[in-house]
């Protein structure tokens, strides 16, 4: 282990700038770390990438320099976890059979590609063309159902990609929201179809091309094999239909809902094969042991953390790069080299001080793809959850303006306001204090686990999730002030007689964020699972789900008659719910299939 450690220090020496945090006392304590982590060499630190590994190595080295140690029982500071990083087609094929004709088989990416959310399956059956495969709920005051009058049960459905091309803007807008391929797959599956084929129609952009498999962070199949096929493959299906695909599309493009689908005189054998690529990313975790015995001390572990991963070149996930910036390195200086540098500097500050509790420094990977690293940590914690006192999270703390620092999640413990007030007497920030602990960052994982947590940030900005989030734009002077403040808050928690008591917060019931969802159920989905159905990471206190008796760990498999295999199904199902109208929810708990009634409330 020692040798290996020395080895990577040697390798890093080539990479690390001449100044490192430890060497520049007097100068900024955060700049060197931010500049290194946000440099081109680390290529945006995408989870599982080489850049992320280099960042992790650097972080471990800095923690070791500060005097932090691997957790008890661990040989090093790395806590690896597995995640699905992407998917590719593993050789899907389609064979088309028409009466009196020799079967035609299409394979290869030009002819057929499974969709990223497709199940791996082999199915065969007759084919039904279902127009654009659109179903607009009646709730939208806009009726449109491509399946009206069609029987697709146990059949394979062929639909056009997108939505009718020639309609007015308002109709387009109404239809566009339901044209997502996941939604089309859901609609087909719920009508009993056993397979879905998508074609880009002759009158649409990129006509006849198959769809490249996209990155999909919710990592389970949609419960139906689904593939995009080429123009020639679609034409083969239409060959004996009496009218061409193009003529059919033209009729549909007027947006006339009365243009129906029809059975095609063909059967197909469809085999979809999706290879989901697993990768390993690493949380970096180390600790400064208490300076005395922790025997008898309430909750002897205090945690301080930040995520260090970012978006790589933004090809996956949630890049907001403009067209001109697409594919460039997303440096993530503020998001979240700033928080990482803060945690490293806190370690340096606290290393020389007395402390009653063990202070753990946790640098997460996989945050940008859904809090995967911190979730892995609380799911398989290296020490019992009940022994963890608090978690302090730093995410995007490098762009302070007008002295404003936001502390979110103060509702998670009654102790926070006093601790913050006291620490801020010396620090002097214009603190904005928000009680809601349900935040899109790693502190949520801890709040869900019942640990008093806080999330500090200086807020979002125009460079958020863009390649322009660079190290030169960081406000280092104020970032260093945050380090001192954070160290004081950490010490207050680490030295308290009683660790801050966790309080469960009932957050504002905002529910899902999709525009079409008009109700809230108070469920908190676990985005980091491959379970079939919707695994609940928690329920909002006092909200409909809690009232219905649902709780953390339940897996919702059906709501209001809609089967649910994943978060997308669930979101679409929510669109159909009406406030104050009770719906049946079927869920799995401890392997048992249970039912309850849930009454959604209006979204605020």
């Amino acid at each position: 282990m020692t040798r290996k450690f020395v080895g990577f220090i040697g390798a890093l020496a080539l990479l690390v700038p001449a100044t490192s945090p430890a060497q520049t006392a007097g100068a900024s304590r955060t700049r060197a770390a931010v500049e290194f982590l946000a440099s081109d060499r680390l290529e945006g630190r995408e989870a599982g990438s080489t850049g992320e590994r280099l960042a992790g190595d650097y972080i471990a080295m800095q923690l070791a320099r500060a005097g932090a140690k691997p957790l008890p029982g661990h040989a090093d500071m790395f806590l690896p976890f597995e995640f699905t990083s992407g998917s590719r087609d593993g050789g899907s094929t389609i064979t088309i059979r028409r009466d009196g004709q020799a079967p035609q088989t299409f394979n290869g990416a030009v002819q057929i590609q499974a969709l990223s959310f497709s199940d791996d399956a082999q199915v065969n059956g007759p084919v039904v063309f279902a127009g654009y495969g659109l179903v607009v709920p009646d709730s939208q005051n806009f009726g449109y159902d491509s399946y009206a009058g069609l029987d697709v049960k146990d059949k394979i459905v062929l639909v056009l990609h997108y939505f009718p091309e020639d309609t007015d803007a308002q109709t387009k807008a109404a239809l566009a929201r339901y044209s997502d391929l996941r939604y089309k797959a859901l609609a087909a599956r719920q009508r009993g179809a056993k397979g879905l084929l998508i074609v880009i129609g002759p009158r649409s952009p990129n006509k006849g091309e198959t769809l490249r498999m996209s990155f999909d962070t919710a990592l389970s199949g949609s419960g139906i094999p689904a593939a995009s096929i080429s123009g020639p493959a679609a034409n083969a299906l239409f060959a004996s239909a009496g009218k061409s695909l193009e003529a059919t599309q033209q009729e549909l493009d007027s947006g006339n809902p009365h243009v129906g689908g029809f059975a095609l005189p063909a059967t197909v054998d469809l085999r979809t094969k999706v290879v989901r690529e697993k990768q390993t990313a690493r949380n970096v975790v180390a600790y400064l042991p208490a300076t005395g015995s922790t025997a008898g001390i309430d909750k002897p572990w205090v945690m301080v953390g930040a995520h260090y991963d970012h978006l790589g070149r933004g090809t996956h996930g949630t890049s907001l790069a403009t067209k001109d910036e697409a594919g460039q390195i997303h440096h993530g200086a503020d998001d979240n080299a700033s928080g990482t540098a803060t945690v490293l500097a806190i370690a340096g500050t606290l290393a020389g001080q007395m402390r009653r509790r063990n202070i753990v420094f946790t640098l997460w990977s996989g945050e940008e793809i859904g809090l995967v690293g911190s979730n892995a940590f609380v799911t398989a914690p290296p020490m019992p959850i009940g022994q963890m006192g608090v978690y302090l999270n730093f995410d995007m703390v490098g762009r302070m303006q007008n002295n404003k620092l936001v502390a979110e999640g103060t509702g998670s413990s009654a102790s926070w306001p006093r601790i913050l007030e006291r620490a801020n007497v010396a620090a002097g920030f214009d603190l904005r204090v928000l009680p809601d602990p349900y935040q899109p960052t790693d502190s949520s994982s801890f709040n869900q686990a019942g640990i008093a947590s806080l999330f500090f940030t200086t807020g979002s900005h125009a460079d958020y999730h863009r390649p322009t989030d660079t190290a030169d734009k960081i406000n280092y002077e104020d970032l260093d002030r945050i380090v001192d403040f954070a160290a004081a808050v950490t010490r207050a928690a680490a030295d308290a007689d009683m660790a801050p008591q966790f309080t469960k917060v009932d957050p504002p019931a905002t529910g899902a964020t999709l525009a079409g969802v008009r109700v809230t159920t108070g469920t908190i989905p676990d985005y980091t699972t491959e379970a079939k159905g919707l695994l609940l990471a928690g329920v909002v206190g006092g909200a409909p789900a809690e009232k219905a008796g649902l709780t953390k760990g339940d897996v919702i498999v059906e709501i209001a008659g809609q089967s649910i295999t994943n978060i997308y199904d669930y979101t679409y199902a929510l669109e159909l719910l009406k406030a104050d109208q009770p719906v049946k929810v079927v869920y799995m708990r401890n392997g048992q299939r249970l039912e309850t009634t849930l009454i959604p409330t209006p979204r605020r």
Partner: protein
Amino acid sequence: MTLRIAICSLLLATTLGGVGAGLHPSTNARGALSQAEGQTRPPEYKESDFLTRVRRLTVEGRRAGEGYWSPDGKQIVFQSEREPGNPFYQIYALDFATGDTRRISPGYGKTTCSFFRPGTGEILFASTHHDPKSKQFQQEELDFRASGKQRRYSWDYDTEFEIYAYSPGGGGPSGDRRGGPSGPSEPKYTRLTNARGYDAEGSYSPDGQWIVFTSMRDAYNRPRSPAEQKQLELDPGYFGEIYIMHADGTGQKRLTRVVGYDGGPFFSPDGKRIIWRRFDTSGLIANVFTMNPDGTDVRQITDFGAMSWAPYIHPSAQYILFASNKLGFENFEVYMVDIDGKKEPVRITYADGFDGLPVPSPDGRQLAWTSTRGGGSDGQVFLAQWNHEKALEALRAAPDRGVRPR
């Protein structure tokens, strides 16, 4: 929105929650502005010209306000609702060197309006804790809140409010923290007033020998006409007058005799003048006045035709900081005006909601004030660096007031 800042130097009448209804047109901010536009435009400023490194001082608890500096500038005393079981303000002193906050008041009853006594460790404040019903009122207020009901904002002119002087236990020196309520020796509370009716809003003279304060005793110590009786039920603040007494509570003497709420008095830095604010009989319009400590030579300083109140004289004695809702009935901002009120006041704060109760530090380089800028409708104490030079420059550049915009 209901403004939920409570305030000693201002006791906003019951009207504050009822914006619009009954609001006299002349108090309308936009009306006042449009008149001002007809005159020479004064130079325009932004908040950061005068206030830098704005910071929130109080975080704990539901609300806090009215921060007053210790004479050495090392502590600040303020009122805050921050302990379970008591929904009313208690008085706390915060030590800048340690970050420690200690409670000054007994912990039960209602309190307000604290002030350090120069040259001693004493702090005055108004309290109702001697009222046997104190804890009952606390429970009633907690129950009311739990019921989810809302009431209009109104300051509570509890007739039991009396002025007390706190001294640290063991008669320790100024700033002796051992003297706090949790310390080894109990603090001493000396009751200084004993008149039926609200006695509060007290402050010491710079030499620590005198206290100016507000009392509504005039409503109770004589027969009332039917009209006065009705007025008392509607708004006891109407009877508020300024009084002066020795620091030991002796020699209480009335200084003002004008109907409408006179309150929030403070001494000038040399102790030779008293500054306060006077409401008209409607309780909607207030202006800043100064007078001699014997009540003579009364001079009106402001005339916005709005609610201008909570004045405090800068230690340089060259200008006055105050708050006004000139720009909107619930949009209070801090202003400053030259000591004689000869020029147009200059706006200091630029934030939505409430900014008021400005108190400069003894060295004149910082400002403490109460603001809702942290979010929500409840105030907290904020601090900022105060640019005295820029303030003087702005006052020099301010146009003469000329015809009063009325």
